[in-house]
């Protein structure tokens, strides 16, 4: 927070401090937006029992944190194609045909079939995928039910977006830090490009920090808008983040710019690290990254000497062949420069002691060690699985007061690719039941052909959803989900930070839509274990969670927009770090125990394939959309009606394609269609493929899956060994070989007739 400025006391005495005026018949609710995963505090205006407007908060702390996705939410969630009643599949899987049933009928059948699968194959034959953030959320209840049943096979998109970063950060200093934007002197963005309508609060924080003089360093192959505003822009090759950080470390160590006292007193493995860093002289780093050595050195000096500095989390480094090393190198840079747990640096906040956190709700202790070790991916890629994280139990208890810290829900997950292989019948044991909540798994992980095969091989698929996504089209049951407008919420910052916020319910859910709380309560009941979710209502559950504050949930929601924990810095001086040694482990004892290189390293690209001369990166979302969602909203779709790939003019010319052409992007795994946009901000031979494209108006069911087979980038995301990170088993999405070819005489894919689920004409 910026320092207070002089003010006139009389001005305050005289001022009227009222909330923004509302029109007659309008009431307001303080809410947390879940249109994406940033969770902005907003205000919902309610008329005639429904939310008609979302606007930014009246609270100066949160003012202006709102984007177009939040603003259109009332219309997006009122869409006529919203699923309002439970649906049961009729015909073959993927037929696209469903009939309406009641929740009771659905749960009776689901419970019976799931119990049969568990009896036949074991509890590990049940896998669950949630997009924990935008389901907002399942409160840890999904893991709680699974842990009681005995299944460790929970997966989520956080496996390649923040959850994995949280898990890997623990190997170095035991927690996942959050940068202190309010008083930092330098911000480093690695491929990340927060904008007015994407990562809005982060954009706001960065611009505010720059306005008060903080420096900005951007590493990005593209000349992004953040790159244009940066003090230093390093246009590195896609996927070379880890190599770049080796270059920075080389400069910082050689020039002795690190915090010698902190390194001497609080770190282990500095000499080994130094030896590894010496393998990366700047000339080599320049070759690997494509950047000028002097610029690399200059950026490293600015980071190390401007301090305290921050390297905010970025999904980009999460999604690479060298992800574990890249994330570890970020942690090492923060550590040796002395930026951990200091004002203006990287804060290790821990849990809020007054709130029952989701890690506690999850009850990981009830799952036996035997079942934990069956978690898919544990053997080959254990970093974020139970096996990789179990050794943190004692240190986390020592420092943070409890054994299991499931930060960003990403610290005890199965590996997605291994889970889909098991579902497809290619794993170490069969998985035959698959549930997904607020999640479109077919398009949210790598290797869509494998995921499709996996889903077609299931005995039971249950989806808790708002809309008929391509994944839901393959389900046995689709149960209608409520939205963030229609339920209360405790937001615990994903177990990452200690601040807690509260969101009011603003309207009743339509039709038979129910919350994830209700979903898991009913599943527990259907499995004859109702005692696992003993609370009658979500409000009762929240009262249990906030009891430590001395207030009820209703009281808190009426008078507390944000509940803070008292800030403290350098708490490690009293407790040590939450690692086995109690110190910052530059050389990781736990990675070594797991059989991996305890120091970071850089795996170079596999041999060049001349048939695929370009490289693509994916995972990028357009501002009107979040992940695979929002394409049904006319106002959003009008802004971005078709998927677009970006190339620069030279590369487009070489590929024989021109602006506005429909093209095909292909690699060894699959191909997708898109319109070409020529952008001079793109470097040579790099292709930007947008994430998550399908068209809700297109034909449903196998064959088309509403255009997912035409447009979904997951078809290009490889998960063969060359394209997986060793330690985590997550895919390389930043620098995949591909080719762009013209699609002769191809227009936009035709919308086939499927009247029941078509969008209205607008």
């Amino acid at each position, binding site marked *: 927070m910026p320092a207070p400025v002089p*003010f006139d006391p009389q001005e305050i005495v005289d*001022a009227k401090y009222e909330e923004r005026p509302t029109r007659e018949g309008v009431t307001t609710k303080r809410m947390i937006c879940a249109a994406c995963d940033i969770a902005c505090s907003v205000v919902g205006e309610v008329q*005639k029992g429904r939310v008609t407007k979302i*606007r930014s908060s009246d609270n*100066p*702390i949160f003012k*202006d944190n709102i984007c177009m996705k939040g*603003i259109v939410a009332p219309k997006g969630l009122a869409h*006529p194609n919203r699923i309002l009643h439970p649906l049961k599949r009729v015909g073959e899987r993927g037929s696209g045909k469903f009939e309406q049933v009641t929740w009771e009928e659905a749960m009776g059948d689901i419970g019976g079939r799931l119990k049969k699968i568990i009896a036949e194959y074991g509890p590990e034959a049940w896998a669950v995928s949630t997009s924990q953030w935008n389901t907002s959320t399942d409160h840890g209840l999904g893991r709680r039910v699974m842990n009681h049943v005995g299944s460790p096979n929970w997966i989520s998109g956080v496996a390649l977006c923040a959850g994995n970063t949280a898990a890997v950060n623990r190997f170095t200093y035991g927690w996942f830090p959050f940068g202190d934007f309010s008083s930092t002197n330098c911000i480093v963005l690695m491929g990340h490009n927060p904008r007015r309508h994407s990562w809005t609060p982060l954009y706001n924080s960065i611009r505010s920090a720059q306005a008060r003089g903080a420096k900005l360093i951007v590493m990005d192959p593209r000349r992004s808008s953040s790159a244009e505003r940066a003090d230093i822009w390093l246009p590195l090759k896609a996927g070379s983040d880890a190599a770049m950080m080796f270059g920075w470390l080389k400069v910082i160590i050689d020039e002795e710019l690190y915090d010698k006292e902190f390194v001497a007193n609080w770190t282990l493995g500095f000499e080994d690290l130094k030896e590894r860093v010496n393998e990366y002289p700047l000339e080599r780093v320049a070759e690997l990254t494509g950047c000028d050595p002097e610029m690399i050195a200059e950026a490293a000096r600015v980071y190390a000497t401007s301090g305290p500095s921050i390297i905010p989390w970025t999904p980009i480094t999460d999604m690479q062949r060298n992800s574990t090393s890249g994330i570890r190198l970020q942690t090492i840079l923060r550590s040796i420069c002395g930026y951990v747990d200091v004002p203006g640096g990287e804060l290790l906040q821990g849990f809020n002691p007054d709130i029952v956190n989701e890690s506690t709700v999850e009850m990981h202790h009830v799952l036996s060690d035997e079942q934990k070790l069956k978690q898919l991916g544990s053997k080959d890629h254990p970093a974020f699985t139970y096996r990789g994280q179990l050794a943190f139990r004692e240190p986390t208890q020592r420092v943070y007061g409890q054994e299991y810290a499931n930060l960003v829900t990403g610290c005890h997950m199965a590996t997605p690719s291994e889970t889909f292989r098991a579902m497809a019948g290619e794993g170490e044991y069969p998985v035959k039941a698959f549930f997904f909540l607020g999640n479109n798994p077919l398009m949210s992980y790598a290797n869509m052909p494998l995921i499709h095969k996996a889903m077609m091989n299931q005995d039971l698929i249950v989806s808790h959803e708002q809309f008929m996504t391509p994944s839901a089209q393959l389900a046995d049951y689709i149960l209608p989900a409520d939205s963030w407008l229609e339920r209360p919420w405790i937001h615990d910052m994903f177990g990452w930070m200690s601040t807690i916020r509260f969101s009011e319910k603003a309207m009743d859910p339509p039709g038979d839509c129910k919350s994830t709380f209700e979903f898991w309560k009913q599943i527990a009941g259907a499995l004859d274990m109702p005692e696992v979710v003993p609370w009658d209502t979500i409000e009762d559950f929240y009262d249990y969670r906030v009891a430590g504050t001395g207030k009820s949930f209703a009281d808190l929601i009426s008078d507390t927009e944000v509940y803070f924990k008292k800030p403290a810095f350098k708490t490690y001086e009293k407790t040590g770090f939450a690692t086995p040694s109690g110190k910052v482990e530059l050389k990781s004892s736990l990675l070594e125990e797991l059989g991996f290189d305890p120091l970071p390293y850089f795996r170079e690209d596999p041999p060049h394939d001349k048939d695929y001369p370009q490289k693509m990166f994916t995972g990028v979302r357009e501002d009107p959309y979040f992940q695979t969602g929002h394409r049904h909203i006319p106002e959003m779709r009008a802004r971005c009606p078709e998927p677009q790939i970006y190339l620069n003019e030279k590369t487009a010319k070489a590929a024989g394609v021109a602006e506005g052409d429909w093209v095909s992007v292909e690699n060894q795994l699959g191909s997708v269609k898109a319109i070409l946009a020529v952008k001079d901000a793109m470097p040579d031979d790099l292709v930007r493929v947008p994430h998550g494209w399908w068209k809700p108006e297109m034909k449903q069911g196998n064959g088309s899956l509403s255009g997912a087979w035409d447009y979904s980038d997951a078809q290009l995301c490889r998960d063969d060994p060359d394209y997986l990170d060793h330690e985590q088993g997550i895919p390389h999405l930043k620098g995949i070989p591909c080719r762009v070819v013209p699609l002769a005489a191809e227009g936009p894919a035709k919308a086939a007739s499927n009247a029941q689920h078509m*969008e209205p004409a607008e």
Partner: protein
Amino acid sequence: MSVEQKKVRKKERSARLAIWMAARSSRNKTFLDRLCRKMITKATAVDPTKDFMRDDFVDNDQGFDPDELDRYQRGETAVVGQQ
């Protein structure tokens, strides 16, 4: 206590004050709450001509009409036969 430790503790006290002010500001019920809110508002104010958060889409949003949303939800805006 070393000079460095003193600096950190001073920053810690400032952060605690800032968090306390933010919490009070968030409540916005008493005079003290409003005083805190006023100070934070003032401290975070940006010159409108340089305000990077201004956006027509956000600033001019009027929301939706509840009856229109009801009709929309029932699919009544769809043109019959056009599906």
